């Protein structure tokens, strides 16, 4: 089986039809399991009563017609319906829920906004889903000491909105920031366009309070960072829900740059574009953002937003430098020169705040605009060393031709974090199969070039089968041991991140997923 290179498949109609791909059989088995929940974990009336005693009947869903929408997140290929969804409002309730799950040996999975593109919220094997959407208070903002305390259900952009006018912001800005929660960001170590200069989520998390799978409320780190112990918050970030349920987060807040310059460089060849990327980074300039969009995506964006992109260009770079007013012009000039030296046809400096905002809106809504190019798409999240960007793009073009699948690119070029978007019609099963193969080849090539299969979306269930191509067996054993230190019986987010992350009573997964190492 060629790995789980399915990406986030857009649309969610029955993808399983007429396909030989093992991935499809796997997806199918999930889908059918969605119809009849077949966990070995038994949800007793007594257990439900205990949960209801914690959150009250109004904050508990247990009838099938209300559970169905929780069968998947932003990743729709695999589906599994939870047995119960609860909506705690505070840490004490989370403790009580997790404790009840422990007593009855029921698996559970935390969920934020459900924008995961890797199936992070999939309740593998059913069990309890703990929806954190009701814990959304911004508890404290301290500008002088540059931190904020938030509950995990706070939507990323709402923190930055709450900071509007203060001269500070919360730096990690995933494209999904308008919807995704900070709890989800912590769990997946989210990045975004501005992480090139400002770093990803882990670089901004000072402390985490969480409920361990054993039901203890634990605080690691805090507003002054950690003392002299292990960097437990650093380890926790990116654990994809497998270490416990986050109930509070201390994040660093960042000064707004005094000035920025946003540029659009227009190129007549992809090679020239990638050369420019490499020259900018190589010249020792760290732009705040360096994003590439190719011809295909530019066409879709132009249709959606009428920005005035040149439709005949092969690719454009969206470059932003920020910092001191006295310094940004010189940097912008250097970048302009480097782009022109690499063959840029034109470098436009955005003249107004409105123009800049529109440019960024185009970039951040790029995935969405794809709907205008084809009925379905699948986006990947591979990473290569930045100097390998030209090579991987040539490879992607070649794969596109060989499999006869149209692929467009919009990605964090400065980080080497690709988001090739494969276009297809999900009703054409044969084409879907080629999409799978093409995705798989691209991610394989990322590994060969010294990169990774995920820069920000996470492993989840989607890319689990790539783990043993990225890591040795020994690496995975050590990682599993670390998981056990937090989550000894694997009941917390089973079937995620590690190819061996099962839970008691999950034997059916093995039966349903031949060929997949997931679950015990």
């Amino acid at each position, binding site marked *: 089986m060629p790995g789980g290179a399915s990406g986030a498949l857009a649309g969610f109609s029955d993808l399983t039809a007429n396909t030989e791909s093992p991935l499809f059989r796997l997806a199918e088995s999930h889908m059918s399991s969605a119809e009849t929940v077949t966990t070995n974990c038994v949800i007793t009336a007594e257990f439900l009563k205990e949960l209801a005693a914690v959150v009250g009947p109004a904050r508990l869903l247990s009838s099938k017609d209300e559970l169905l929408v929780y069968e998947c997140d932003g990743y729709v290929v695999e589906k599994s319906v939870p047995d119960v969804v609860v909506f705690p409002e505070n840490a004490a309730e989370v403790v009580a829920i997790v404790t009840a799950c422990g007593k009855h040996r029921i698996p559970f999975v935390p969920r934020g906004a459900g924008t995961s593109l890797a199936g992070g919220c999939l309740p593998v094997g059913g069990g309890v889903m703990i929806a954190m959407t009701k814990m959304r208070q911004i508890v404290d903002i301290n500008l002088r*000491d540059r931190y904020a305390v938030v509950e995990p259900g706070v939507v990323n952009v709402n923190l930055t909105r709450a900071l509007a006018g203060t001269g500070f912001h919360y730096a990690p800005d995933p494209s999904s920031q308008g919807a995704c929660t900070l709890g989800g960001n912590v769990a997946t170590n989210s990045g975004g366009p501005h992480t090139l200069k400002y770093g990803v989520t882990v670089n901004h998390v000072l402390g985490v309070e969480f409920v361990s799978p054993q039901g203890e409320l634990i605080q690691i780190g805090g507003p*002054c960072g950690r*003392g002299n112990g292990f960097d437990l918050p*650093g380890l926790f970030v990116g654990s994809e829900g497998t270490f416990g349920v986050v109930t509070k987060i201390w994040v660093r807040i960042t000064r707004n740059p005094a000035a920025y310059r946003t540029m659009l460089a227009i190129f007549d060849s992809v090679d020239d574009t990638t050369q420019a990327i490499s020259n900018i980074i190589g010249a020792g300039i760290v732009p705040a953002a360096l994003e590439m969009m190719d011809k295909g995506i530019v066409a879709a964006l132009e249709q959606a937003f009428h920005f005035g992109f040149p439709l005949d260009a092969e690719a454009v770079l969206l470059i932003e430098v920020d910092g*001191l007013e006295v310094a940004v012009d010189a940097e912008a000039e250097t970048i302009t020169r480097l782009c022109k030296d690499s063959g840029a046809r034109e470098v436009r400096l955005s003249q107004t705040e409105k123009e800049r905002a529109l440019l960024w809106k185009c970039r951040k809504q790029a995935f969405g605009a794809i709907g205008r190019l084809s009925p379905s798409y699948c986006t990947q999240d591979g990473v290569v060393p930045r100097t390998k960007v030209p090579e991987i793009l040539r490879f992607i073009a070649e794969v596109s031709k060989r499999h006869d699948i149209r692929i467009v690119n919009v990605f964090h070029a400065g980080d080497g974090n690709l988001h090739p978007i494969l276009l297809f019609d999900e009703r054409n099963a044969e084409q879907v199969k080629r999409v799978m193969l093409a995705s798989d080849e691209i991610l394989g090539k990322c590994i060969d070039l010294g990169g990774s299969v995920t*820069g920000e979306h996470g492993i989840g269930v989607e890319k689990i089968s790539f783990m043993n191509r990225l*890591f040795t067996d020994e690496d995975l054993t050590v990682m599993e*041991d*670390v998981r056990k*230190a937090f989550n000894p019986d694997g009941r917390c987010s089973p079937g995620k991140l590690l190819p061996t992350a099962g839970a008691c009573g999950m034997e059916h997964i093995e039966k349903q997923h031949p060929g997949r190492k997931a679950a015990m």
Partner: protein
Amino acid sequence: MTNSSANDSGQQLLMPASTAEVVELLRAAVGSGSRLSTNRVTAAGTNSAPDSVRRVDLQKMNEVVDYPARDMTVTVQAGMAVSELTKILAEENQQLPIDEFDPLLSVGALVAGDIAGPRQYGYGTLRDYVIGIEAVDGQGRIFHAGGRVVKNVAGYDLCRLMVGSRGSLGILTQLTFKLKPLPEQTTLRSFRFDDAADFESALTKLNVSAANPVLLDFNFASSPPAQQPTDDSDCVQKDIPYALHIGVEGAPEACSWQIEQLRNDCAGGEEVTSDGSLDLSVDHHCRNAGYGWQDNEVRIRTFPSKLVAVATELGARGYSTQGHAGNGILFVQDRTGDTDVRTVCRDIVSRHGGTVSEWTVDHPAKNPDPLSAKLRSTFDPRSIFTA
């Protein structure tokens, strides 16, 4: 086979030349029940370990594994001296912006010790720079985490766990860092404040300064009330109650513009100019100011807004402090010979918030919390690594 030799103190020194040899050492240690330490015996003779402990020194593992300069990442073996790495990176006009104090320090020790100096204000700490690791745990298992790309979320972030683990979870054998360009120019300015309120107000302004300082250090000299200097021998103490050192960087015009801003922010103080005998440069300051852990020093991490209050209270009890004002970090010098310094610090911090620690005492492996203990027994179930 692993080289070994006896060092000055007669301790056996093991010098593996490859990761495979490190594994061998560990297997042997597991077999024989002996213990290993990566702690260097410093010239001062501190950190001397009991005789039963065999010391591992990675000085033979000091190569650059991969330096794709245009990717701005570097992969090196853990035994390379930080000063050596700095030199190699400087040739490409790049840097790992972590201040080290000791030219002989290895990159493994740098990471394991989570060493950080003045520029952590502008650049952050090692947790922001380590993107890949290779290490060998207490069971002789080689493990990797992260990779060689700057953005990667595959697998648990064991890089973060190893930063500051002080040799208690495994021996780091290889490290990959994310790099930064060297700045065109750096400039340091110092200001003195006679009055705590002026100092406080300058810090508050600097927090939202139009300039972009990379370091914001302070010192506050105090003499025990009972021992006020009778002569003028210790003029520093008398003359500079609070001193603030601020570093900026960038193009020359950006530096001079920023210095103007700093002067506005520090209007309540007086600019201290170099008399020629002092090298007022960022580089000199970071390497020689000696801001940081020293023997018997206590480190306080508090809120930046509480720094002046904490320093003043300590001063009133006769303790001099220095540290990273922008980060709320104070190092307390025990000049009184009073063994009670920790208790005093604890008391003050309990009122203002923060943590108190000492390099030798507060080893992460000694952390009493069950989670740390569990992790420790996961990586080193037989306690091969001495704490």
